């Protein structure tokens, strides 16, 4: 009863639209920070290369190594952080 009206959700101008799906967010994160390369994403079987890259990231960042895009991994991907890649030059 406290919310008599449905919550309006507004797209604010100038805000980066976060329309990325979880998977797209994961692929861009893993590529940006060196856990996989663009080539791997394009040529390998997407499912295998993602799991492998996720395992690498989870191990590097001290997360539970599952190879899956679970909640704690997604939360880590959304956390504020340094822009220097974790792997590679």
């Amino acid at each position, binding site marked *: 009863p406290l919310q008599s009206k449905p919550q309006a959700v507004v797209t604010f101008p*100038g805000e980066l639209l976060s329309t990325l799906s979880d998977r797209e967010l994961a692929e861009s994160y893993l590529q940006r920070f060196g856990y996989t390369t663009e080539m791997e994403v394009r040529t390998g079987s997407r499912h295998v290369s993602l799991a492998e890259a996720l395992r690498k990231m989870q191990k590097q*960042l001290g997360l539970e190594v599952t190879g899956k895009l679970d909640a704690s991994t997604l939360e880590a991907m959304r*956390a*504020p*952080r*340094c822009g220097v890649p974790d792997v590679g030059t």
Partner: protein
Amino acid sequence: FLTFEGDLKWDHMDLTYRVMNYSPDLDRAVIDDAFKRAFKVWSDVTPLTFTQIYSGEADIMIMFGSREHGDGYPFDGKDGLLAHAFPPGQGIQGDAHFDDDEFWTLGNGLVVKTRHGNANGADCHFPFIFEGHSYSQCTTEGRTDGLPWCATTASYDRDKKYGFCPSELLYTNGGNSNGSPCVFPFIFDGISYDACTTDGRSDGYRWCATTTNFDQDKKYGFCPNRDTAVIGGNSQGDPCVFPFTFLGQTYSACTSQGRQDGKLWCATTSNYDTDKKWGFCPDRGYSIFLVAAHEFGHSLGLDHSSVREALMYPMYSYVQDFQLDPDDIQGIQYLYGRGSGPEPTAPAPVTTKEPQPLPTEAGSTSTTEEDEDETSEPTIVPIPVDPSQDACAEKNFDAITEINGDLYFFKDGKYWTRSSFWTSDIQGAFTVADTWPGLPAVIDAAFQDVLTKRVFFFAGRLFWVFSGKSMLGPRRIEKLGIGKEAGRISGALQRGRGKVLLFSGESYWRLDVKIQRVDKGYPRATDDVFTGVPLDARNVFLYQDNYHFCRGSFYWRMTPRYQVDRVGYVKYDILQCP
């Protein structure tokens, strides 16, 4: 810990850094202090030293920027990427960049450092009570000039302690107006502006003219962020406007209505529905100290660590009482050792001359005719040098001053001279007691009175005056009118018309040499006038008409127009050691 491929590291220990620009989120002094502490995190456990310079190319160049800021690695608006840095090397290598779409604080929310007022630059205390009302942001209440102020204690009514908040009406940052405040309205591109604007810029920084006409005068500065400035959105830096209308409702505080992520926002005009201008309200923000310490780890050669508690772990987390993790210490000491410092290199052969006649005879000079004759080319004969006699082996000096055209370097009862009018080699070491009998071995400062040629020496709270060899003193500096707050005099600047500035701590006094009394209205704060020089200089002296402030192995040179135009090495530039 991890280092970069090939163990990239600096090939020298005494590193320099330069802050190219400042975020409008924090007072410049707060940012400088945070960077200084961030470097100290690393210098505390290695032989590395870090010195801030204000012009020219430093090893580590630091800048704030947003989105694409010139290096091909764009930031991404608020949150997400906070900063990045490059491994050691030339050019952009070693540099550190900070995303100015973030809200920079010390990790615990808005930091509003005040200026002027009577609180010595203390931070605002929110909330504070004024005339019985509680304020949780700066206010113009009680003033007619529109300057926002705040109390620096919980109750202005009780303590009467206050300062002025950042405001473009009080000062600007950077630009070319030496901090002058904005003038409203001003004309830019033929249009009249009565507020700061980002027009004409692509980097989103708000600016204003500091005269009525920018088109004509080209004078400008960047506007500091007010305490109610929004972050991000599409009007970064503009203040919230309360009340504002959103979807027909009126809001007089920040709200998360209309958002799914719960972040608080406000409109920057009175009607979001028509104007669509908005931004996020200040939150705890990110500690510029913690993020800088992490990025400077990269600048020194450390890569990301997988130890969650380590400073070099890639994710941000706020820590109240920061301590370097053993993993970080092992990493940085693997690269630079733990404070053993570089091995001294054998000094090159130096020719030394016979001691000079007395330098303080009234009207005498430090060179005699026959000296000049001796300027024939010295034959360089490698002479074994007793390091205790070699000025170039000294790390710093008790006092440096110019006497009769020669520079005098005092240290532990010895002194060296070097002519400041033509390149000559270093003379000495001589014994202070031989030239000025009765003077203590260690002195803090000295200067020669230009009119009478008398030389004043200071040690602790005592001073001596020499005319030739005849000495007057020691006397206490209270006699000059200098209070107890001056523990030691660190240096003196002759100012002509019989006036000399005496420096101690962060203050200076103006001495009338004739009556040997300091003028009324002193001491004054050094950085009010001598901005940009170290406030803990060990030596302050006049040399070639410029003011020199020395700290460690460096000196800051300030022109008579109070511009720091050079930072360099005492050893190589002033002593001119090989």
